[in-house]
């Protein structure tokens, strides 16, 4: 790998052509990740895989048709058009198989993906025998290749990707609504089915745009990895789209730069690995939802549950046998190493028991109260109710104890 070339590519100083390619790849990454976020929210991520593999026969057929009519078989626009047609057929096929037979969607996706791909390979080998050498460009659509990309092609990809981003922006409101809460959207009058269709068609178009850069085998990765990575940063759909688009753009940009500096490498795999690196960074480091943060949080939660249960057992005079519970209680100074509760421990246990009793009393006193939804076994009732309400509960509890 050539570091000079890499540096030049990253700083957009490697020539006008390369700069356009880089910008195009960034826009492609952004639009792919953007539409991929919506597809992910609708849980149709792998349908895009079937769509992308279904482009291959279309590429072959377009080449044959264009050559038959005396044109240049490798016109990117023409190949893209062919790709789009068979991709749409693939999408229809997945839908038809799922609706008309007892097969489930995953079987339909897998079947369409592999069969269309196989048919496409047949066409490629036919083309290979038809005009040896001339088809040399077509297999680059499998894994992507920016090396030797024509300026016109780079421009086409850049402009089309930009259009994709614009279309995403225009459709963002209905797609966010449907992605986040489809039943609410339907109730609000949106035609969910039509929006889903628009979403898949946009994904199809962006897939076709990305064929030359990333290749059909791996373009689906650009639609899945950045959105999943974005998940670690936020739960809000609108923010997720933006972060995913940013990560996708970064992956596209850096990936094509690296691929340009290493001649042997097809572009697609490099972009995908770049995206995965960003994914790993997000997974580890993201605050709140990252791996580190959420593991720590869950461990703390687990300990609190065991501590609460342990204290309640102590308060009722029961022995605590569970080892993890004992360890937690020991750690917090609530029991001695031999398992006997400390003074502080007894106090905490009594407090826990009182809290449980108050919650129980509140539940019987005001069964319809929405505050009861806050009960999770751990939240003390003093943080929910006012002092006088608690005093009332205590009064009733004392009465109940006193009653025969």
């Amino acid at each position, binding site marked *: 790998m050539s570091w000079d070339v890499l540096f030049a590519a990253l700083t957009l100083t490697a020539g006008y052509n390369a700069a356009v390619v880089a910008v195009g790849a960034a826009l492609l990454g952004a639009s792919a990740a953007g539409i991929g976020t919506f597809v992910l929210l609708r849980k149709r991520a792998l349908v895009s895989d079937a769509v992308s593999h279904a482009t291959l026969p279309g590429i072959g057929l377009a080449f044959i048709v264009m050559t038959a009519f005396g044109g240049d078989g490798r016109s990117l626009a023409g190949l893209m058009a062919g790709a789009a047609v068979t991709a749409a057929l693939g999408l229809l096929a997945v839908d038809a198989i799922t609706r008309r037979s*007892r097969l489930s969607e995953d079987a339909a996706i897998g079947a369409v993906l592999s069969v269309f791909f196989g048919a496409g390979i047949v066409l490629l080998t036919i083309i290979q025998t038809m005009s040896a050498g001339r088809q040399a460009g077509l297999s680059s659509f499998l894994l992507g290749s920016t090396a030797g990309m024509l300026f016109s092609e780079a421009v086409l990809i850049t402009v089309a990707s930009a259009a994709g981003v614009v279309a995403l922006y225009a459709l963002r409101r209905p797609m966010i609504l449907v992605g986040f809460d489809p039943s609410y959207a339907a109730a609000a009058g949106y035609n969910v089915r039509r929006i889903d269709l628009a979403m898949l068609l946009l994904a199809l178009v962006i897939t076709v745009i990305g064929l030359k850069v990333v290749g059909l085998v791996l373009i689906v990765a650009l639609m899945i990895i950045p959105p999943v990575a974005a998940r670690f940063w936020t739960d809000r759909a609108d923010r997720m789209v933006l972060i995913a688009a940013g990560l996708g753009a970064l992956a596209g940009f850096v990936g094509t730069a690296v691929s340009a500096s290493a001649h042997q490498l097809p572009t697609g795999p490099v972009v995908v690995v770049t995206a995965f690196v960003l994914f790993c960074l997000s997974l580890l480091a993201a605050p709140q939802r990252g791996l580190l943060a959420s593991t720590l*949080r*869950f461990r703390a*939660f*687990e300990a609190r*549950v*065991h501590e*609460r*249960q*342990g204290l*309640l*057992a102590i308060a009722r005079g*029961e*022995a*605590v*046998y*569970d080892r*993890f*519970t004992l360890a937690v209680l020991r750690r917090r100074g609530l029991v001695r190493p031999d398992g006997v509760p400390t003074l502080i421990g007894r106090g905490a246990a009594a407090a826990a028991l009182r809290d449980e009793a108050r919650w129980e009393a509140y*539940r*019987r006193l*005001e*069964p*319809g*109260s929405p505050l*009861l939804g806050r*009960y*999770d*076994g751990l939240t003390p009732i003093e943080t929910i109710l006012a002092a006088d309400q608690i005093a009332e509960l205590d009064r009733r509890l004392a009465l109940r104890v006193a009653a025969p």
Partner: protein
Amino acid sequence: MRLSAPRPQVIAREGQVVEAIDTQSPLDIRGLSVTYGEKPVVFSVDFTVPAGGMVAIVGPNGAGKSSLLKAALGIVPRLSGEITVFGRPIETARGRIAYVPQRSSVDWDFPARVLDVVMMGLYRQLGLWSLAKGEHRSRALAAIERVGLAGFEERQIGQLSGGQQQRVFLARALAQGADLYVLDEPFAGVDAATERAIVSVLQSLVAEGRTVLAVHHDLATVPAYFDHVLLINVRRIAAGRIAEVFNAENLQATYGGRLSLQQLPELDRNRS
């Protein structure tokens, strides 16, 4: 956390003293907590199923009834809790339990006949490899007949009605010959005839001295079908005999005041 050993239970029915099959509780749950992520769906529940009882688990939707069952049986992971079955840890005593899951947990389009599904109940006897003999088939057929599906053995399960599917599940459980029967919403979405048939089978099981534990969705029929109840809404609200525990106050506490008691006029008499 474990208490001292559970107390033995003997059920007297209509003046006749029937000894429980086992002197220990069929299912003893201590400190069971189940969470999805950080949301507790079951918190610190203690419950002892009385031997020979017909026990209902009742509570609002999403209140953890199904999760309680599945976590107790070890089908989903639990955050904490100790489960003993007839005095032994559940991991070693699963053979004494017959589990009837919700109908929706299965794809009924699966290529199997009624007889095939019921024969699955004999897995413990057959193991991985041994061939099914005539006696196994007879046992399955007997179970099929007991639930009122005689003649349906060769029917594809996909062609059954909801009620018939539920009966197939019950037959599968009967074929196991267990001592404790655990059912998850056995009456949801079934027709009246099937409901009567299932209740009748369950009651005959109890008459044989076995124990039945069921998540039940219909409050109106709880007193008619069951003799014990566990009221749950994340926490255990109340548990015990129907006559003592199934009253307006406990139900209001369980359902958060969203209950209309006009549907249950007989409960007004139990108001404490």
